[in-house]
């Protein structure tokens, strides 16, 4: 009970910190913060997909589907952002549900490649069909959200908006994971044959995780494009997908907060080392390799690892 209170306190403190943080940042850093918060949702939703043990390579494209949906609804059909935002999630989720039929006939390597192929086919369609997707230049001049006359072109209001929506989504994602469904998802991953023997339809649960994860990343996509104001196909290519993978793995895919930790730390490092320029991707690559080799459970396992090291060095400590 005490531990639970402590966690709650920590979360409240972090949120409070985030509320005042943008006021101490420079303009372009405020933008950076908005994108970072959106990316937290991207990684957290991706983790839900991977819970069943199936790593997809289509998550970035699912984000794009959300972005294109919301962009096109607001721009061409004059939908309000507040309606297009959930619809972005719905369309991405539906697409995932449809794709589940072919894709989940396969597992592991085949699923990975299949999801990659399906994603590329979707992305290339955005490029090829200029009507209505706008080709490589995408769709621009997307409207900002409107609410009580707040100016969402300014970074701080948009940051609060993003923070509120992302926090809500994270709470839901967390609840899903801790619910019965979440436990079943874990079981599908680690004990698939056993799960099936007790009557769990693994296909259903894989689809559920894939659809739900895609829904949330669709929302993340919509959130991002209404700040940038432009949606282009190249934002959602394999390059971005790889970053999602790296964030998750470096942070640690086994726990909820590990993934979030990964995206935050890496993004800040990335921004700090802009100077490195052309060699930046190589640093990313090297970090990725080192982590998978030496810290496969990610950053979140680091404190434990250090602790057990120390314990190992002084066995007496383990009694206290």
């Amino acid at each position, binding site marked *: 009970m005490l531990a639970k209170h402590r966690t709650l306190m920590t979360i409240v403190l972090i949120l409070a910190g985030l509320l005042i943080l943008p006021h101490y940042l420079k303009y372009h850093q405020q933008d950076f913060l908005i994108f970072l918060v959106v990316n937290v949702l991207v990684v957290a939703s991706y983790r839900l997909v991977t819970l069943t043990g199936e*790593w997809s390579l289509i998550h970035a494209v699912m984000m794009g589907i959300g972005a294109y949906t919301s962009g096109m609804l607001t721009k061409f059909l004059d939908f309000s952002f507040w309606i297009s935002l959930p619809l972005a999630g719905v369309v991405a989720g539906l697409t995932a549900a449809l794709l589940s039929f*072919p*894709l989940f*006939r*396969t597992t*592991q*390597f*085949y699923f*990975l*490649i*299949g999801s*990659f*192929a*399906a994603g*590329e*086919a979707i992305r*290339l*369609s955005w*490029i*090829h069909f200029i009507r209505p997707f706008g080709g490589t230049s995408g769709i621009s001049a997307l409207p900002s959200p409107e609410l009580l006359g707040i100016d969402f072109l300014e970074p701080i209001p948009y940051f609060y908006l993003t923070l509120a929506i992302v926090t809500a989504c994270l709470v839901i994602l967390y609840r899903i994971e801790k619910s019965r469904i979440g436990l079943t998802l874990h079981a599908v991953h680690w004990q698939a044959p056993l799960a099936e023997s007790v009557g769990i339809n693994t296909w259903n649960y894989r689809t559920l995780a894939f659809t739900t994860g895609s829904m949330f990343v669709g929302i993340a996509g919509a959130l991002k494009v209404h700040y940038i104001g432009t949606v282009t196909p190249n934002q959602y290519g*394999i390059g971005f997908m*790889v970053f999602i*993978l*790296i964030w998750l*793995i470096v942070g640690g895919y086994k726990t909820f907060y590990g993934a979030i930790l990964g995206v935050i730390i890496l993004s800040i490092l990335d921004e700090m080392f802009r100077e490195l320029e*052309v*060699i*930046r*991707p*190589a640093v*990313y*690559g*090297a*970090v*990725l*390799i080192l982590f*998978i*080799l030496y810290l*496969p459970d990610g950053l979140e396992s680091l404190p434990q690892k250090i602790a057990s090291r120390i314990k190992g060095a002084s066995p007496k400590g383990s009694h206290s």
Partner: protein
Amino acid sequence: MELLVQTMVNGIIQSGFYALAAVGLVLIFGVMKVVNFAHGELTMVGAYSVWFLHAQNDMPFLLTVVTAVVLVAMIGLLMERFLFRPMTDSPLGGLICSIGVLFVLQVAATLVGGEGPSKQVPPPYEGTLVLFDMLRIPYQRLFSFAVAATTLGLLWYFLTRMRIGWALRAVAQDREAASLQGINSNRMSMIAMGVGAAMAGLAGALMAPLTNINPHMGHNVIITAFIVTIVGGVGSLPGAVIASVLYALFHTFVTTYFSGTIATISGLVIMVLILIVRPSGILGKRVTE
């Protein structure tokens, strides 16, 4: 009619590159169960080597092709020894390592070549063969195709007629059973990775005078190699070769008569369909669940 024949020839020549790249990927996956995402980048390194040594530093073309193959094979061996081998138990681990390598190789290429326009290699074999006054094949393409076909023939000989080739295929079929028979599976992994990487390097070196060389050129190569691998049947080398020819013809024909993007999109869709209908590919064995 002219266009039909020309397209046929264009497609068959293209299939040589596809096959070289895909066969390596299949070999690596078959023996090591690792998806080498950096396979396209190995091709890119092959092309860059030719650009750097031949176009920039005037080394003879054939010598640079050999150097490129050796260099890329060595990169492959290093990847096997230091990345894939420690990751034997986790297939995803190998994949992720290869993504890391992908970034490192792209940056290495940028550092060697600098930013800026795509690199160009003047073709060492100039001129065009004209057949029946209508069919035109540049000698450079003819040369590349001949080398690719010969290499694939040698590989076939190696795999089917030599002891070590048999052992390699045994490991690909069942790693545990093979090691029970005393086959050193680590050694087989090394051979598979070395040969697979060498072929990717060769594909890149042969492509160099015919294409835009830049650090990101591997992306299209890997997409093609994936499609060919799935269509041909994962783990099936003859399947990969046949799928390369079919896909190259398909892609060339659709590009000629419709559009290049449509060709790639339909290739990807066909691949997904094959995954559903026949996950084992056209020549692969049925997968048992």
